[in-house]
C-alpha cells in the first residue's frame, strides 16, 4: 500500500484531505525512500491529489488494493488452515489411529500365542481364533497404511513391519508344530518369535505412530497459527478504517450525508472480517475438542492397552521360560509400574464425554494385577507351584485381563471416533468461507468503485 499512499504524507500543507484519505495505514517509508521513487509517479500523485476527482481516483485505487490484500490474507489463511486440517483428518490422524490399532493387534497376537502355549499341547480353539483374527486385523491395518503412504521415514518403519511379520508368524507356527509333539524346542521358537515382535516389529510400529503424532501436531500448528487471524484482523481493520475515511472525505467534500454504495461496501467488509474470524475461532474450538476429547484420551488409552498386553505377554512368557525369566519379570515390573503409576492415573484424570468408558480401566487392571501377582508368587516365593500358577494364569487371570483389554479397546474406539468427528467438524466451514470471502471482496470492490465513480462523474 505504501507506494500509493506514502508520497502524500510529507506534504500536509498541500491538502489536508490528501493526507486524510491516503494515510489509513499508519507509517510508511522514511524521507529517504521518496528520493528513490520515480519522480513522475510523485508528480502524478501530487497533481492528482490537487483536485477532488483526482483524490477520489487515488482513494479508489488505494481501497481496491486494501480490499484485495484483506481478501488475499483471508483466503490464504483459510486455504492453509483447510489443507492443514485436511492433512490431519485424512492422513496423519487416521494413520495414527491405525498405527495404534496395529500395535494393539500385534501385542494381542503375541500375548495370545503365549497364553495358548501355556494352556497345553493342544491350544484352545478360541485362543487360536483370537490369534488368527489379531494377525488378520493387523494385516488389514498394514495394507491400509501402506496404501496411505507417507514420508521416507514412515515408509521405512512400515517396511520393517511388513517384512518381519511373516518371519514372526513363521516362528510362531514352528513353535506350535513342536508344541503339538510335546517338544520343548517349541518354547524356544516362541521365545524367538516374541523377541522379534518386541525388539523389532513393535518399535517400528511405535516409530510410525510417533511420526504421525508429529504430523498431527504440525497440522494443528499450521491450522491454528496466530499469524493468520492477526493478519486478517489487521488488514480487515485497515480496510474498514480506509472505507470510513473515504466516506468522511465524501461527506466533507461533497457535503452529502451518506454514500449508500460505500456504506454497503463497508458493511460487507465488516461482515467478511467477522465471519472469517468467527469461522477461524470455531475451527480452533473444534480442534481443541478433537484434541482434548479425542486425541489425548485415545493416545493414553491406546498406551494403557498396549502396556497391559505387554505385561500379560510377559507374565505368560515368564511362566513358559520358567526360570530364565529375569528379563521378562523386569520388563513386566517396569511396564506395570508405568501403567499403574502413570498411564492409568492419567487416563482416570481425563474428563470429557467418554469418561465413563475410561473409569472402568483402573479397577479392571487392579483385579488382573492381583491374580497375576498370586500366580507369580506361586512360582517364586512358594517355590515352583508351577501347575497352579499356570492354572490361575490361563483361567481367572486370562478372564480378568480380557475384561480389562475389552474395556480399553472400547474406550480407545470411542475416543478415536470423537477425534475423527472433531476434525471433520473443524474442517466443515472452511471451504464455504473461502467462497464467502471471495464473493464479499468482489462485491465490496464493485460497490466501492461504483460509489466513488458516481461522485467522480459528477465533477465532469
Amino acid at each position, binding site marked *: 500500500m505504501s507506494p500509493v499512499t506514502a508520497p502524500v504524507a510529507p506534504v500536509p500543507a498541500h491538502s489536508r484531505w490528501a493526507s486524510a484519505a491516503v494515510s489509513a495505514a499508519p507509517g510508511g517509508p522514511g524521507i529517504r525512500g521518496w528520493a528513490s521513487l520515480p519522480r513522475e509517479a510523485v508528480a502524478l500523485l501530487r497533481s492528482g491529489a490537487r483536485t477532488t476527482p483526482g483524490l477520489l481516483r487515488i482513494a479508489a485505487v488505494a481501497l481496491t488494493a486494501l480490499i484485495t490484500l484483506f481478501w488475499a490474507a483471508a483466503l490464504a489463511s483459510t486455504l492453509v488452515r483447510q489443507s492443514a486440517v485436511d492433512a490431519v483428518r485424512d492422513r496423519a490422524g487416521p494413520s495414527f489411529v491405525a498405527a495404534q490399532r496395529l500395535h494393539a493387534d500385534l501385542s494381542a497376537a503375541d500375548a495370545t500365542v503365549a497364553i495358548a502355549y501355556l494352556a497345553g499341547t493342544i491350544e484352545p480353539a478360541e485362543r487360536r481364533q483370537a490369534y488368527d483374527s489379531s494377525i488378520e486385523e493387523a494385516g488389514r491395518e498394514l495394507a491400509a497404511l501402506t496404501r496411505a503412504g507417507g514420508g521416507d521415514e514412515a515408509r521405512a518403519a512400515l517396511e520393517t513391519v511388513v517384512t518381519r511379520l511373516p518371519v514372526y508368524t513363521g516362528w510362531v507356527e514352528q513353535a506350535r508344530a513342536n508344541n503339538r*509333539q510335546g517338544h520343548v524346542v517349541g518354547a524356544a521358537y516362541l521365545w524367538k518369535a516374541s523377541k522379534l515382535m518386541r525388539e523389532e516389529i513393535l518399535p517400528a510400529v511405535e516409530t510410525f505412530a510417533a511420526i504421525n503424532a508429529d504430523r498431527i501436531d504440525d497440522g494443528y500448528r499450521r491450522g491454528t497459527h496466530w499469524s493468520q*487471524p492477526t493478519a486478517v484482523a489487521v488488514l480487515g481493520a485497515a480496510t474498514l478504517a480506509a472505507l470510513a475515511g473515504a466516506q468522511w472525505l465524501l461527506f466533507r467534500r461533497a457535503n452529502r450525508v451518506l454514500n449508500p454504495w460505500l456504506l454497503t461496501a463497508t458493511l460487507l467488509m465488516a461482515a467478511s472480517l467477522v465471519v472469517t474470524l468467527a469461522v477461524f475461532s470455531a475451527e480452533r474450538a473444534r480442534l481443541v475438542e478433537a484434541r482434548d476429547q479425542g486425541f489425548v484420551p485415545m493416545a493414553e488409552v491406546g498406551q494403557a492397552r498396549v502396556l497391559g498386553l505387554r505385561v500379560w505377554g510377559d507374565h505368560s512368557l515368564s511362566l513358559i521360560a520358567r526360570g530364565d525369566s529375569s528379563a521378562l519379570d523386569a520388563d513386566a515390573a517396569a511396564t506395570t509400574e508405568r501403567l499403574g503409576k502413570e498411564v492409568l492415573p492419567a487416563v482416570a484424570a481425563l474428563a470429557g464425554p467418554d469418561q465413563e468408558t475410561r473409569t472402568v480401566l483402573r479397577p479392571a487392571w487392579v483385579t488382573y494385577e492381583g491374580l497375576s501377582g498370586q500366580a507369580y508368587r506361586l512360582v517364586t516365593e512358594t517355590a515352583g507351584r508351577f501347575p497352579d500358577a499356570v492354572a490361575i494364569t490361563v483361567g481367572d487371570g486370562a478372564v480378568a485381563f480380557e475384561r480389562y483389554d475389552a474395556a480399553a479397546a472400547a474406550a480407545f474406539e470411542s475416543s478415536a471416533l470423537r477425534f475423527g468427528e472433531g476434525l471433520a467438524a473443524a474442517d466443515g466451514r472452511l471451504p464455504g468461507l473461502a467462497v464467502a470471502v471471495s464473493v464479499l471482496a468482489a462485491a465490496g470492490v464493485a460497490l466501492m468503485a461504483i460509489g466513488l465513480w458516481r461522485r467522480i462523474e459528477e465533477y465532469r
Partner: protein
Amino acid sequence: MTWPGSPRAPLPVTARLTLAGLAMAVAAGCATLSSPLPAAGRPAALATSPAPAPATARGPDDCGDPTISERPPAVMPPPGAMPAGTLMDRIHQRGSITVGVLADVPPFGYIERTVDEHGQGVSAFQGFDVDLAKEIAKSIFGPDGADETHLKFRAVTYAERIPVIQDGDVDIVVATMTTNCARRAAVDFSVPYYDAVATVLVLKDSPYTGMKDLGGRKVCAPLGTTSLEHVEDHPAGPVQVGLPTVADCLVALQHHEVEAISTDDVILVGLAQQDPQTRVLVDDLLPGDADHELIAVGVGKDHPEMTGFVNGVLARIVADGTWERLVRHHLWDYLAAFAPEFPRPPLPRYRD
C-alpha cells in the same frame, strides 16, 4: 489513533469499539494450538534384565578329585526322624523340600504338558533328575514325600543352578550339574550319580564326524555349563556360541546359525528326538576319546550333613536297583541306539 494532519478528527467511537472487540476476539481465539503426544501416551522402552546370566565360574583346577564327597552316615536316619540341627530336620519341620530342576532338558528335567479328560492343560515335572529328587524327598518325609505338598520344584536354567543354592532359594539342585573344582569353590556336590559323555549334535547331511572337524565353526552350548567351557578349550578351535538353553541351541542349528551343538550325550539324544534331521556324532563316544561329565547333586556349602545324607540316598538307590530302574525308564531308550552297554553307576569316592 488519530489521523495524521487532522488532529480534530479522531476515529469514530463505533469504529473504536469495533476495533477493540476485534482485538479481543483475535487475542482470545487465535493463539496457535499444538497437539503433542501426551506423556502418558508415549511408548515405554523395553526393560532389560537387571542381572544378565553370569558367565561360567572358572577357577583353579587344584582341588584334587572333584568327585570325592562326604561319607554318608553309617546308619541312615529313617524317614521322619532326622537328626536335630541338620538341614534335613529343618526341611522336615518346614514340611517341604525345594529342589532346583531343569524344565526344558528331556530326559533329565522337563515339564510334560498334557491335556486331561476335561480338556484342561496339565503340566508336571518329569525326568531322571526329577525322580532322583523324589527319592531324596521320600527319604526325608516317607512314602508320601514325593507329593506336591512335600516336594516343591523350582525350575532353573543352567546359569541359575549355582546362584539359587547360594541364595538359599532351594535346598538342593538336581540338574545335570557336572562336578568340578571351579564349581566346588561355590557349592558342595554329592558323589556323581551319572556318567555322561560330552559329544556333538549336527545336521544329518553335514560332513562332520566329531569335534575335531569343527575348527573355526560355530558350536553352540548352553550358557553357564561346562559344555561351553569344553567348546572353548577344545584343541580343534571351534567358535563358541552360548545361548540360554539347549532348545535355543537347537533353534540356532535349525536356522543354520551354528554348525553343531555340544553337550551331554543323553541331552543331545533328547534334542535329536525333537528334530529327526539331526544326528548325534557317536565317534566322540569311543573310549579314550570320551569327555566325561560326572554329574552330581548340588548342595549348599554350609550343609555337609545334607551332602552326606544325599550320598546315603544315592548309595541306597544304587543298592536296591532303583537307579537301574530309573536309567532304564528315562535314559535307556535314548542311549540304546549307540551305547555299547547298559550304563553303570559311577563308583562313589568318599572323603577321609
